[in-house]
């Protein structure tokens, strides 16, 4: 089932062009913006990380978007994922994804995304948690993911964008920041200075199969 949801998300969230403008302070990552630039960045263990523009998987299928949002009204959960790769350092080129699981938000339809505006969610092991690793929707192996024990995600701006004369679709811009510290087997991974700025078209938040159809 999950595979199916993700497959749909590829169609709905993809297709927008990335606008990469370097941060004037941390030159290796994208600057923080609230324009729907379709880009995110972070410093992972001192090296730069950036969201991907596309990725193909070992057992088939390709991803054309790097921010995925899945809503599960039955379990009152929202899953926000960022797909990316390391840009420099010894792990240059390696895929690395971040996933936040938020509970208790009552996201029932797409426009409920507005309630994220200005909200900060701090990891607490109860209704906010996060994990990092490489998410493969076609070959899921949760043991390969590293849970995070400290961190947060801040949705600084969630705003509606109407369609324009150039043929763009209405939807929401989601912009914010995040930071994580994740430890597994004594190995600490720090994700600092995280930021994201994405435009998601109406219908771009994935709901369970029986709600969608």
């Amino acid at each position, binding site marked *: 089932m999950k595979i199916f949801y993700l497959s749909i998300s590829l169609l709905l969230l993809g297709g927008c062009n990335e606008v990469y*403008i370097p941060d004037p302070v941390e*030159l*290796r990552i994208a600057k923080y913006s609230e324009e729907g630039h379709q880009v995110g960045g972070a410093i992972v263990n001192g*090296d730069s990380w950036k969201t991907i523009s596309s990725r193909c998987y070992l057992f088939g299928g390709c991803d054309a978007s790097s921010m995925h949002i899945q809503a599960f009204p039955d379990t009152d959960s929202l899953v926000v994922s960022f797909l990316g790769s390391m840009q420099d350092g*010894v792990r240059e080129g390696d895929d690395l994804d971040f996933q936040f699981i938020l509970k208790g938000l009552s996201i029932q339809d797409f426009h409920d995304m507005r309630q994220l505006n200005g909200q900060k969610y701090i990891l607490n092991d109860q209704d906010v948690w996060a994990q990092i690793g490489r998410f493969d929707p076609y070959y899921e192996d949760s043991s390969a993911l590293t849970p995070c024990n400290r961190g947060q995600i801040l949705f600084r701006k969630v705003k509606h964008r109407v369609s324009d004369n150039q043929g763009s679709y209405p939807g929401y811009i989601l912009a914010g920041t*995040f*930071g994580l510290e994740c430890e597994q087997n004594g190995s600490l991974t720090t994700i600092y*200075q995280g930021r994201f700025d994405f435009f998601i078209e109406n219908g771009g938040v994935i709901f369970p199969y029986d709600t969608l159809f």
Partner: protein
Amino acid sequence: MKALLLVLLLPTSLLAQHLRGGLMYTDVYNVPFVDGHLPKLRYTLGLSFDIDLPVWDPYFLRAETRYAEKGYRTQVNEGSVQRDFQLEFYYIYQTFAAAYKLTPKVTPYLGLEFGALVRTQLKSGNRYINIKGTYHPVDLGFLAGVQFFSNSPVSLDIRAATSVIPNLTYESFDDFGNPRGRIRGVNHLTLEVAAMIRMFKLRYQQ
């Protein structure tokens, strides 16, 4: 921005008396968020005209329009590797200076310059990335210089200039993404050595 450039360029171009071109040693100050920075060698090219009325003698005014490339270099440590970044700012400046004929051959001057930022880019390795909407579109600067052999058709002009107002206002974040307040910085600092070629003299000029 195009209208501003036209306003800046048109009068000086029509009345140009001098052609001015040279090298520029350019750096920045007021950048506490950068771990060290290095200067760059760039160039400048411009046109100028003097308003040199006999009743003002020995003082006169000089208006100048010039193109200038400013910027700086910085390096980021990535393990044992150092990665080099170069910030480049392309400006069109309009300058107004008050000059004093100290001797027939030496003319010191003081002035203000107003720069319109045409383009900013980051160079990293072989990659050039256009930076849009990050730095202030206008640079306000103060300058001081001396023109040597000013009574000759070709003279030497040495000038120092600095930004009066920081060119960057940006919101910074802590490691976890909490807003940490606005930072202001990036003031340009340049030292120019240029040749000035006089194309003609006005009738009242000696």
